[in-house]
């Protein structure tokens, strides 16, 4: 038999005959793949191409010198006078908020005069000769062309807690290179504007070609004080990329779970279609087609579906990515590092991935049904009345395998992380999902057999029939329940994890935010931006009546073992109204804080211990100013606000090494009986020209929860899409069931069933599928949430989360899914009602 004829007979004709089924498969592929693609694209735009905005105007340098709290000015002079032919570019790197628009942009200070020595970097461009005379004025700024300022134009910038007017004196060329605006100043002006007297943030070094980078690094290392870090240029970017890679990895895996749900549906739809085509298969087999030919024909069909699905997924994924990139950028800013999402770029690579993933999923999902199709014996298939699956599934054996997989999943959950990634955690989750899928036939069988008589009593004979029919076509039912329950499990587990996390954060804030008022400089905060409040203002607040004490919190960006971290200090000797007690050791806070004030001691946050494998009693050695200082970790504190990891010192310890008295945040304690609003008003007045935001304890918690919810927006979005895919699949699957069973419905009608009874039968089937899926999904979701909270989260972020059932959220979500499942049955039910019983019974 010619292959083309076989393909036509077996595949092409049925595909066109059953457009709904074909469309469903294509759509399932398209949705699944588009999610993978959207997350890939968005991930790439938001973090993949991450380049610190501070790398603007850095030119072609080789090495950089950095230090916690800045590099002392004199190091620039020392480097400049070394006998080596180096090019040296000191920089101030900070942020400014444009008062008019509220946009926060990088503020870069360069030595405008010495830049003339640099042949390769691009120069600022004075707007006119007049502008040049003011190059080094303290109020001279250079803006990107996109900011559209004309020479001499005034621009108000909020830097730290001060707003001042600056004058645009020229343009920064090549602004198309970086994805946003920047403000450039001469290093003198920038140092004054950012109040970084005596320090620069980074010194870039260009080396001669010989004798190689490593050799130069060694030579220069010995010429520099030990506290200064000497790294290849852009190591900050590299460190941030390493940090973001883990985040992105987790996200990608979430997106593939959505694809998994799609795979279930493809499997189901193709299974059904194989049944539909048994006669055709029998015919072609009888005409001499080999088993392999049939197998290949079905796989080819799946591949074509995958191809079409992927083709739809590409534009769809691109659209979804627009939304995803915004959500991602929020998360990255809040948890990791100030970033600007790059543009979404649909590369050949991502298009290729879409096709490979789409066709791969479709072919793999079709493998088992296609094999089944090839097994159809020609004689049997051609006979009439063959409807149900020839191969019955062995539910007991499957359940047993499922049980052992679940056991293996449990074991995998106990394994440690590999290279900071919870690979075994993910394996555990996959094993649990597989275990659940294998156990579902047993669950369906058991539930329906127990329930059928009960259902008959409550809801009538239609319910009994529905229940029995589910049990009879156990395989098809199991696949449907499996698909929906996986989606529900995903939703439930993420819901439980996020809910638990949220509750943990709320109770943590309860103990960790004991002060009455909190102040920070205006402008938007980010995990790595620490603008400061002027010390003069802090002193004024201390004198405000009603203020009992102020804890000054100061944060610096550091790199520890090649990863970004935050080094901070706080006043720990304040009378506290409520003692925080959230230390890992469980010791009273007073004991820990007392140890902290003695000598070179530090406390570190839980994510820090996770990233750097340290514990209480260990030593962390940090570069501070010019020195390399070793701190003993006296305890570990819980922290959920920052994924980068904190090292906290007592303020007096910090000032010994970094004498800058400005604070990044202030926590103000009021005297007992002082009126909150009144004191807040007094502080506001004391601010004079300091631009600060004042939060009451309650405001701050609300703000923190708002940021928290924003951060998890992307996970909510992902699970919602998975559930939509699943529910759509239910609708489509019920549709194929109706088509498949039209002879049965015809017989029922002939036996006297009314159309209303047929409709009821189908809706009850849908409802039963919904209930079974909810039960299985909830159980699996619970287990997955344990893996998420205690394995995946702990290993990749290091947060200890207290388990908590988010009851109302779950109830609501599950009800929505349930109602959606029942509603998905309405259209198929209507089709079933309309069937002509005589016609369908005699169809074959």
């Amino acid at each position, binding site marked *: 038999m010619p292959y083309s004829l076989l393909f036509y007979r077996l595949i092409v004709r049925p595909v066109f005959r059953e457009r709904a089924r074909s469309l469903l498969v294509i759509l399932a592929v398209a949705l699944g793949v588009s999610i993978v693609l959207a997350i890939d694209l968005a991930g790439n735009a938001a973090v993949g191409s991450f380049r610190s905005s501070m790398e603007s105007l850095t030119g072609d340098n080789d090495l950089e010198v950095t230090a916690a709290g800045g590099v002392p000015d004199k190091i620039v*002079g*020392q480097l*400049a*006078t070394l006998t080596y032919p180096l090019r040296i570019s000191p920089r101030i790197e900070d942020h400014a908020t444009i008062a008019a628009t509220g946009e926060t942009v990088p503020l870069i200070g360069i030595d405008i005069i010495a830049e003339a*020595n640099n042949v390769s970097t691009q120069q600022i461009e004075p707007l006119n000769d007049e502008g040049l005379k003011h190059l080094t004025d303290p109020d001279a700024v250079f803006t990107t062309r996109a900011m559209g300022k004309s020479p001499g134009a005034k621009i108000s910038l909020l830097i730290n807690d001060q707003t001042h007017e600056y004058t645009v004196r020229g343009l920064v060329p090549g602004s198309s290179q970086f994805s946003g605006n920047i403000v450039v100043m001469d290093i003198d002006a920038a140092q004054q504007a950012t109040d970084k007297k005596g320090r620069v943030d980074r010194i870039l070094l260009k080396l001669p070609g010989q004798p190689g980078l490593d050799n130069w690094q060694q030579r220069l290392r010995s010429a520099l004080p030990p506290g200064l870090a000497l790294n290849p240029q852009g190591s900050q970017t590299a460190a941030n990329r390493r940090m973001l890679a883990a985040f992105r990895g987790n996200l990608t895996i979430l997106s593939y779970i959505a694809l998994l749900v799609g795979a279930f549906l493809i499997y189901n739809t193709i299974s059904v279609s194989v049944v539909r085509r048994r006669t055709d298969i029998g015919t072609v087999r009888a005409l001499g087609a080999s088993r392999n030919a049939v197998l290949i024909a079905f796989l080819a069909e799946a591949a074509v579906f995958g191809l079409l699905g992927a083709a739809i997924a590409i534009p769809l994924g691109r659209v979804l990515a627009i939304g995803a990139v915004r959500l991602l950028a929020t998360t990255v800013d809040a948890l990791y590092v100030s970033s600007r999402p790059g543009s979404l770029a649909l590369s050949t690579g991502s298009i290729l991935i879409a096709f490979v993933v789409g066709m791969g999923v479709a072919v793999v999902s079709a493998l088992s049904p296609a094999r089944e199709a090839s097994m159809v014996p020609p004689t049997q298939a051609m006979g009439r009345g063959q409807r149900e699956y020839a191969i019955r599934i062995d539910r007991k054996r499957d359940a047993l395998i499922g049980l052992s997989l679940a056991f293996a999943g449990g074991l995998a959950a106990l394994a440690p992380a590999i290279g900071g990634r919870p690979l075994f955690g993910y394996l555990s989750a996959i094993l649990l999902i597989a275990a659940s899928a294998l156990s579902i036939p047993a669950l369906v069988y058991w539930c329906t057999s127990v329930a059928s008589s009960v259902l008959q009593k409550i809801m009538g004979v239609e319910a009994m029939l529905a229940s029995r029919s589910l049990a009879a076509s156990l395989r098809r039912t199991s696949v449907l329940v499996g698909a929906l329950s996986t989606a529900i499990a995903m939703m439930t587990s993420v819901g439980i994890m996020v809910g638990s996390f949220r509750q943990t954060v709320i109770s943590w804030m309860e103990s960790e935010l004991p002060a009455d008022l909190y102040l920070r400089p205006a402008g938007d905060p980010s995990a790595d931006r620490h603008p400061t409040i002027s010390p003069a203002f802090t002193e004024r607040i201390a004198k405000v009546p009603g203020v009992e004490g102020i804890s000054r919190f100061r944060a610096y960006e550091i790199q520890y073992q090649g990863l970004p971290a935050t080094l901070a200090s706080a006043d720990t000797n304040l009378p506290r109204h409520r003692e925080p007690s959230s230390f890992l050791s469980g010791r009273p806070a007073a004991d820990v804080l007392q140890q902290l004030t003695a000598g070179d001691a530090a406390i570190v946050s839980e994510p820090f211990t996770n990233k750097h494998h340290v514990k209480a009693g260990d030593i962390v050695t940090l570069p501070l100013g010019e020195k390399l200082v070793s701190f003993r970790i006296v305890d570990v504190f819980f922290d959920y606000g920052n994924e980068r990891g904190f090292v906290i010192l007592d303020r007096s310890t910090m000032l010994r090494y970094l004498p800058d008295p400005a604070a990044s945040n202030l926590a103000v304690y009021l005297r007992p009986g002082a009126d909150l609003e009144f004191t807040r008003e007094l502080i506001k007045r004391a601010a004079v020209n300091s631009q600060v935001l004042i939060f009451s304890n309650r405001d701050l918690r609300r703000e923190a929860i708002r940021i928290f919810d924003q951060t998890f927006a992307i996970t909510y979005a992902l699970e919602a899409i998975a559930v939509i895919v699943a529910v759509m699949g239910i609708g489509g699957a019920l549709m194929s069931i109706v088509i498949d069973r039209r002879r049965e419905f015809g017989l029922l009608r002939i036996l006297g069933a009314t159309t209303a009874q047929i409709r009821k039968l189908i809706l009850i089937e849908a409802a039963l599928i919904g209930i079974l899926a909810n039960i299985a999904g909830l159980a699996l979701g619970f287990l997955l949430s344990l893996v998420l909270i205690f394995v995946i989260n702990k290993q990749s972020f290091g947060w200890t989360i207290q388990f908590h059932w988010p009851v109302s959220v779950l109830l609501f979500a599950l009800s929505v899914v349930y109602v959606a499942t029942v509603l998905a049955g309405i259209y198929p039910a209507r089709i079933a009602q309309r069937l002509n019983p005589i016609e369908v019974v005699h169809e074959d």
Partner: protein
Amino acid sequence: MRTRFIVLLLILLAPGAYTQDYKQALPGYQYQFPRDHFNHPDYQTEWWYYTGNLKSADGHRFGFELTFFRQGVSRDSNDATWHVHDIYMAHLALSDISGRRFYHDERINRAGPGIASLDAASGAVWNGNWRALLGDQHQSLRAAEERFGIQLELASTKPPVIHGRNGVSQKSAGVGHASHYISFTRLLTSGEVSLNGTRYKVEGTSWMDHEFFTESLGTNETGWDWLSLQFDDNTEVMLYRLRHKDGSVDPYSSGTYVDVQGKSVLLSAKDFTMTPTGETWTSEESHGKYPVQWRVTIPGLSLQADISTPLANQELASRIGPTYWEGAIDISGQHAGKSLRGVGYLEMTGYGGSHSWGANRSNNH
């Protein structure tokens, strides 16, 4: 864009800006050494200018120039580290006469945290890692870029010469259009030249000029030609010729003769002639056409000298500042009937390039 930036940067350096904040070079200035070897922040412009002729044991001949410039920008009381009070420029050039190539580099900096400055206590004047240590008897130079460098010890054989009359070297008509100008006319030099990875032990003679002033050139002066001549009879001559737009020579052109004992004699414009004698060299970079052959006569001293250069291309084509020709020369001539030979340096400005030297360095040697 770059060129425009740098050209405009010169406006910042331009004399005439903020001159009211500075003193002018006036007659009667009391020199005091070693103090007057160092910085004079009360004057807007100042430079320390080393040139010399060197030879290695195996006969490889070099010329070198190392110059430190300081230009006052502001004299406010802001004491921030990076605040710009002065701009420091420096030029380094090596004439590989035997290898027939000219190498040069330049840099511009602010003082900042010790990037460029002067320190009377240690005797240092530096710009990045180019450095001179000054002293009455002894000076040392160290400067290098990727391809070439010098490390030289200089010993004075004569006391410093103060040029001009009554402590000022007048450059054009009018009070203050002058500079305070000091030279070490014969510095015995030994040390090392490195070039493309090869080190040469060298010996020779150097010349050092130190000038400080506030706006000295007249507005009609477009450039100058300057000569330092070190004769083998242990005498030296310095001459400069200021040129007008129309090609005529300014009457304030002047010079100095230094005898064997180190005693100096002022040469005014009428005391000497200094004339190009035909041969020119045209720069491919700046398209400037430089007269590289000269004849000098000083009738009062019965001195006549023919000047030629062993390497025509010694143009310092600057990225940052003005372009000029500064190179090693050979001298053959006659003094009171006896034949005379020598070496020296020739500087020619205002011939080529888009920016006139006069816009920046408003004085001459």
